[in-house]
């Protein structure tokens, strides 16, 4: 089965191609093409996973391009990590395909949407299967393309246009880091293959400095794609895309690609203390940073987006702390509960036609399926014990503690507190209290509810693949059994639990019971509040620094181009034409002037000759 792993991404690609060509004709039926294709992918992925359970790996390569003696290859490999990722991706993708059938119904570009979904799924699966950095980079960018197309799906909205452009460009900035790192690595190791790179790391071919440099450069790519600080600003804006897209791309899969990349290159990172430190610090900072912004957002999807950023920060923190397993574990659980949350949010939006939480409220009864499922997701992400998020977050906190980075540990704990607070702020504002919107809100159709139910189940169940109580299945699987669970101090779990419960309580006091006034923060620290509401002015900072600088330079160059470069050309042509008119004016029609010029010429020649004694030049 594993030698057929390449078919996994092929199905969505076919779906993309077919829908691009015939989608306009098929209209509604397009959905089924997409759903079937992803289902087939999922089945194939499961087959690969099953094969992988047998404990073997598989790798196949074909020549992609030859450069002299160097052969660049394309192929696929099956490792524990990517077999697992295949399933997660294919699964979430399949669910989103199903969900979209309901959510996107009635859109005139319905088939286009499915085509784009197919393209994205293909790219994501391709990325996961890549056995070498170059191929990973190719799919990495294609994933970005899929994301770009889907964010800009409502192309006629200026905001969507801007968001799509921003997403592409911000991630591109990261990608260039990846690109540079990749090419540097190539000349150090003479290969793009992960295995060759790891070998070079192992036998010291790669100098420590270069290891750190390339690792950090590649990590910049991960920062861009995973929305880590400081390249995170595109992710909230990306919420302009249709909600299923947010669920699939900006929660479960693409943004996790950064985490996956670092995980896939983990031996490279492990070899460099500095790189690990960078990853951990960026992750930790992002976790708390995004969480604070999430506190004050009023757009339901933006809150979720900042929460995603924050959670991805957790994963990075885990990686940086050396716990590769914790990262992947959290990636998995997060994929499920965040997808659930987004889909539920989509369902809410579908019902009330607004994304502003101030205009929602009291939806608990109106949305009998969505509301509890959202609650499950919220509990899971908040790390309430027995939900999946609890286990994975606990694992990360433990990893951070065990790694000795106490500051980062407490940062993560603080972030956990904030997480549970803003999630329940959201919950209470949306589902409890009085309705602040007009019109009817109806529960979504079954095609939307169904996937949410499945995800709801998984948001609880996926936690049990790696628990301190039942055993660390995931860890052993990912490390081929080498994994052994380091016993974290028991108090960490307790602290985590308390923290999450405190967060929920605070949210309840403020938004549920309203004993604490809502403008508590804004009244007490208006500047701080504004700071958060404006996302720490990061966007503005970029606008006034990077964008302004580039704009200034390009304006400067435009002047250089128009006046200096063209000016020199003008000067030359002007000189020639002035010489022409001078020469023409000198031709004054006087025969004797002509003679005089001649005689003057003769005299000059003769005099020069007489004076220099014949030694010319």
């Amino acid at each position, binding site marked *: 089965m594993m030698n057929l792993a390449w078919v996994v991404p092929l199905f969505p690609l076919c779906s993309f191609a077919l829908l691009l060509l015939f989608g306009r004709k098929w209209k509604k039926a397009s959905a089924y093409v997409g759903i079937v294709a992803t289902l087939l992918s999922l089945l194939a992925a499961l087959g690969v996973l099953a094969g992988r359970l047998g404990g073997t790996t598989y790798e196949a390569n074909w020549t992609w391009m030859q450069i002299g003696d160097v052969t660049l290859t394309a192929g696929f490999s099956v490792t524990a990590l990517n077999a697992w990722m295949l399933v997660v991706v294919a699964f979430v993708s399949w669910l989103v395909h199903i969900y979209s059938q309901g959510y996107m119904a009635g859109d005139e570009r319905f088939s286009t949407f499915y085509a784009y979904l197919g393209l994205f799924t293909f790219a994501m699966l391709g990325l996961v299967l890549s056995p070498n950095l170059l191929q990973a980079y190719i799919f990495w960018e294609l994933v970005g393309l899929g994301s770009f197309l889907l964010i800009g799906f409502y192309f006629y909205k200026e905001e969507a246009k801007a968001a799509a452009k921003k997403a592409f460009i911000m991630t591109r900035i990261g990608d260039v880091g990846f690109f540079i790192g990749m090419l540097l690595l190539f000349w150090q190791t003479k290969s793009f293959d992960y295995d060759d790179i790891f070998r070079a790391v192992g036998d010291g071919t790669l100098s420590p400095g270069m290891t750190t440099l390339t690792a950090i450069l590649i990590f910049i790519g991960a920062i861009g794609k995973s929305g880590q600080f400081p390249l995170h600003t595109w992710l909230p804006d990306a919420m302009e895309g249709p909600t299923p897209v947010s669920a699939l791309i900006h929660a479960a899969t693409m943004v996790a690609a950064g985490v996956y990349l670092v995980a896939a290159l983990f031996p490279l990172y492990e070899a460099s203390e500095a790189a690990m430190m960078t990853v951990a610090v960026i992750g930790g900072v992002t976790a708390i940073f995004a969480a604070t912004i999430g506190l004050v957002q009023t757009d339901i999807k933006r809150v979720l987006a900042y929460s995603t950023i924050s959670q991805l920060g957790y994963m990075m923190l885990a990686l940086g702390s050396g716990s590769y397993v914790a990262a992947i574990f959290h990636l998995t659980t997060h994929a499920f509960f965040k997808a659930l949350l987004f889909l539920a949010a989509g369902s809410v939006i579908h019902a009330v036609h607004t994304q502003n939480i101030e205009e929602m409220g009291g939806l608990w009864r109106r949305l009998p399926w969505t509301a509890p499922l959202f609650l499950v997701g919220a509990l899971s992400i908040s790390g309430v014990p027995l939900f999946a998020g609890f286990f994975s977050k606990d694992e990360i906190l433990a990893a951070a503690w065990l790694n000795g980075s106490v500051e980062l540990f407490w940062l993560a704990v603080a972030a956990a507190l904030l997480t549970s607070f803003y999630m329940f702020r959201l919950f209470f504002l949306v589902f409890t209290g009085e309705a602040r919107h007009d019109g009817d809100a109806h529960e979504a159709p079954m095609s939307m509810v169904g996937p949410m139910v499945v995800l709801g189940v998984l948001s609880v169940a996926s936690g049990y693949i790696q628990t301190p109580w039942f055993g660390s299945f995931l860890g052993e699987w990912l490390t081929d059994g080498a994994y052994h669970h380091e016993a974290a101090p028991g108090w960490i779990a307790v602290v985590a639990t308390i923290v999450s419960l405190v967060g929920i309580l605070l949210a309840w006091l403020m938004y549920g019971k309203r004993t604490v006034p809502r403008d508590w923060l804004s009244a007490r620290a208006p500047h701080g509040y504004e700071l958060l509401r404006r996302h720490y002015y990061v966007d503005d900072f970029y606008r006034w620094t990077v964008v302004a600088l580039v704009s200034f330079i390009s304006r400067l160059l435009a002047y250089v181009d128009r006046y200096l470069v063209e000016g020199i050309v003008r000067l030359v042509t002007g000189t020639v034409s002035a010489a022409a008119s001078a020469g023409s004016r000198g031709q004054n029609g006087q025969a004797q*002037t002509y003679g005089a010029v001649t*005689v003057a010429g003769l005299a000059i020649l003769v005099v020069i*000759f007489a004076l220099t004694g014949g030694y010319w030049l």
Partner: protein
Amino acid sequence: MSGTDIAFFLLALAAIAGGVTMLQLTNVVHMVIALVMTFLGIAGLYVLLSAEFVAVVQVLIYSGAITIIMLFAIMLTRHHADDKERQTTGGVWHRAVAAISVLAFGLAVYFGIRRLDFGADGSALAADNAREIGKWLYSYYTIPFEIVSVILLVALIGAIVLAKKDGKGAEDK
């Protein structure tokens, strides 16, 4: 200082004086007359140089023929000629450039010729150089001689073509 030297100086003086006078005069006819002096001086020099035949030709052609046709041309075209009219062209710059160039050129050449000497005294030149010239013309220089005849033909026709007033009848055609 021998007699020839004195003769040379006188003749040279006459020639140069004629030229310089020509440059100074304002009346065109006077200018031509002044140049006749130069031409005659040159003819005298030819005699000093034992070139009697050339001297004769010089007198006939330059002092005679050419001067006459020049005078004719002046008369023919002298409808509104005014002696007070400006006799030199261009502005100061033009004349200055011309003068400086000519002067510089003259000096540079003079630098070369001031002590040019081949040590020949030219005594070999036969007294009857007309015969000698004839011999050269009809043997060695036959071809250029013929060409010159063609040139004179061309000049003849050309002068007629250019100077002749086209008859009314011809123009009507």
